[in-house]
């Protein structure tokens, strides 16, 4: 495509500006250049785009505009990052097959199901860890209560596929069985570390997922 004067700068702006598609203020000349760029990409990849009339204010809806090639690449990069991130969670033993089962339950009627379940776990589990810590500090020791608290944490961790948390809970339960308070204390510290790491990893994962979600929603709405 032959370059018009000012096109390279406008192309760079296209990458940064196209994030907000609802209202774009364009000059007639800017609009013309952008439409030429998008037209070329559309002809290769997508059906023809909406061509606005020559006005200074243009309202651009995601469903009216196809993605320029640069944003498609950003989306592909994001998707790859998400895939690699999730794979690393499995490879490093943070998550197991149960997490995949949760993702299989996600559908159009509950599009954020996995994030909701994980958010619920991350909301409940600190309370359990705090209760475990308080109970460990009490005298005389109540190993029955400790076992009950860790049982809850093990159950909910297992339900979201948090395998490291689940395994550490099993270690803790074994120490409860042996009435080994020092073992319980050490295990609790490991549980807290595992919990903090899992929280950080999953929050990053869902943050990335949220970035691709609007585009996927727009694609799905066009189907």
């Amino acid at each position, binding site marked *: 495509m032959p370059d018009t004067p000012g096109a390279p700068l406008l192309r760079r702006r296209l990458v940064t500006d196209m994030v907000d598609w609802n209202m774009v203020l364009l000059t007639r000349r800017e609009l013309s250049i952008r439409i030429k760029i998008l037209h070329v990409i559309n002809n290769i990849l997508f059906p023809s785009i909406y061509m606005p009339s020559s006005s200074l204010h243009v309202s651009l809806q995601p469903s009216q505009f196809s993605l320029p090639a640069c944003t498609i690449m950003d989306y592909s990069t994001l998707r790859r990052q998400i895939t690699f991130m999730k794979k690393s969670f499995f490879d490093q033993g943070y998550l197991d097959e*149960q997490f995949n*089962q*949760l993702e*299989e*339950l996600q559908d159009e009627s*509950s599009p954020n*199901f996995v994030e*909701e*379940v994980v958010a*619920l*776990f991350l909301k*409940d589990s600190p309370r359990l860890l705090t209760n475990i810590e308080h109970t460990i500090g009490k005298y005389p020791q109540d190993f029955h209560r400790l076992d*009950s608290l860790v*049982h*809850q944490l*093990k*159950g*909910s961790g*297992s*339900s*979201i596929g948090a395998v490291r948390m689940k395994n550490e809970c099993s270690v803790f339960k074994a120490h409860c069985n042996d009435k080994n308070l020092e073992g319980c204390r050490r295990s609790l510290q490991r549980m807290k570390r595992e919990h903090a790491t899992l929280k950080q990893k999953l929050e990053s994962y869902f943050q990335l997922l949220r970035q691709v979600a609007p585009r996927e929603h727009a694609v799905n709405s066009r189907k």
Partner: protein
Amino acid sequence: MASNAQGSPVKALLVDDTAVDALILSTKLRKFHCETTVAKTGKEALDLFHEGKKFDIVLCDKDMPIMNGLEAVEKIRAMGEIDVKIVGLSADYDATEVFMSAGADAFVPKPMKLDVLSAIIQDVINKKNNTMV
């Protein structure tokens, strides 16, 4: 996917005090078009039966506050509710014997897989259809 040829949804009572587990299992039950009620304790479950509510299946966790699952299952059966299918659930893998002794029909360790739940629900549907014939 479990299907009900006669059209009426399976009425499921889910008894679990763990919010995460209740959310997951009720979502799985929704996949099979079950009408699901959630109780957080064995006592809440028992109160529903006392109110005259009827269920085709009860999925009951073992360890809950106020009234645990084993006690709830015993009392539900003692009320004369012998037709309702009761499935015990627990993160303890060896709770089969205690649940069966309490009067449950089956025990499934948590987390319950979708295909296991599908088979259980289909079994309930088949029983309902046979009863209606």
